[in-house]
């Protein structure tokens, strides 16, 4: 498997991966991310996922004030030498960005769920973004039926833990205040 075949020839027998190793990964349509030295390889997204990414980026871009930028994956968010994530969408301060990556936490990270990433997005990435201090994390559930599409908004508390700050389903509209004012209706993301 060329994938995760970080081992042709082996990349330092058994040692934790570093960001430099990611450059050697094959260009096979999959997403290669590193979380605390653990390599996570996820499948290429499908149509519904990509439609939701485009629709949401359009909304976020339309409301974006001059100091921020909206980016879609693949674009690396570097949280440590052994941690590099590629959220489906992110909003960052322009001054935080380099040509190559975002070397600090974004102001908003968004993951659009798909069958093979749902579990990792919810259980692993959310926890890692929380630990990195990403102030707002959105999860989009792009259901086939627009009435069932969902948006979850997780915000950092003063204690540094995420709490579910808002949830919108179908035609309900979520009016975000952070990172900047924008209204999102989940059903619109999958139509």
């Amino acid at each position, binding site marked *: 498997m060329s*994938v995760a075949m970080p081992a042709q020839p082996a990349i330092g027998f058994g040692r934790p991966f570093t960001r430099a190793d990611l450059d050697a990964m094959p260009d096979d349509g999959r997403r290669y991310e590193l979380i605390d030295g653990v*390599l996570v390889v996820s499948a290429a997204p499908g149509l519904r996922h990509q439609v939701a990414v485009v629709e949401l980026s359009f909304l976020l871009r339309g409301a974006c004030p001059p100091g921020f930028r909206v980016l879609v994956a693949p674009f690396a968010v570097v949280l440590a030498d052994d941690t590099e994530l590629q959220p489906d969408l992110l909003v960052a301060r322009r001054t935080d960005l380099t040509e190559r990556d975002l070397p600090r936490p974004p102001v908003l990270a968004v993951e659009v769920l798909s069958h093979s990433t749902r579990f990792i997005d919810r259980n692993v990435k959310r926890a890692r973004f929380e630990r990195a201090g990403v102030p707002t994390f959105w999860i989009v559930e792009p259901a086939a039926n627009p009435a069932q599409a969902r948006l979850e908004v997780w915000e950092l508390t003063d204690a540094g833990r995420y709490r579910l700050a808002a949830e919108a389903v179908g035609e309900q509209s979520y009016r975000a205040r952070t990172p900047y004012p924008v209204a999102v209706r989940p059903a619109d993301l999958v139509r």
Partner: protein
Amino acid sequence: MAVQPAIGFGRPFARADLALTPRDGRRYELVDGTLIVTPAPGRRHRRAVGRLAEALHAACPPELTVVVGPVPVGFGEHTELRPDIVVRSAEADPATAPVLAVEVMDRRTWPFDHEVKRAVLERERLPGFWAVDSELPRIEAWEPGSDGRYVLTVDATGDDEFVAVRPYPVRLRPAELVRDDVGHE
């Protein structure tokens, strides 16, 4: 770099793909078709696995058996974990889910490993999961509560006694998992 023929461009991985992973000491696991590759464990990890397996084996009733891994434990076609130790029925087909899965983790991968393993095993309704921090050292025992969510039932650190009831009674101190071999044997 030499790119090998890709495994089905971009598609989710299946358990059969794991047969093609290199023998590089790392652990290759699948969650819903997403591949997770953890660094090779070190000596401290192996020692803790060995000590814990001994303790489990010594107390093991005849109808169960202790298997030292990494042991492939599959759930469907796209999910496969490889716990360090499993306890399973001595009679049943080895492909049946075990009654206990034990993961020994180091400090570095603890947050990741703990979160993933606990969540997957909870979802798959495994009756028992022990999480071992080989550095602290600490042993946690998790099992499904009445609503199916995992609850922490035992949590012992250092010289505290870890007293498990399920899958069968076992007592040990986490400190024993990491004590140097010198003077131990």
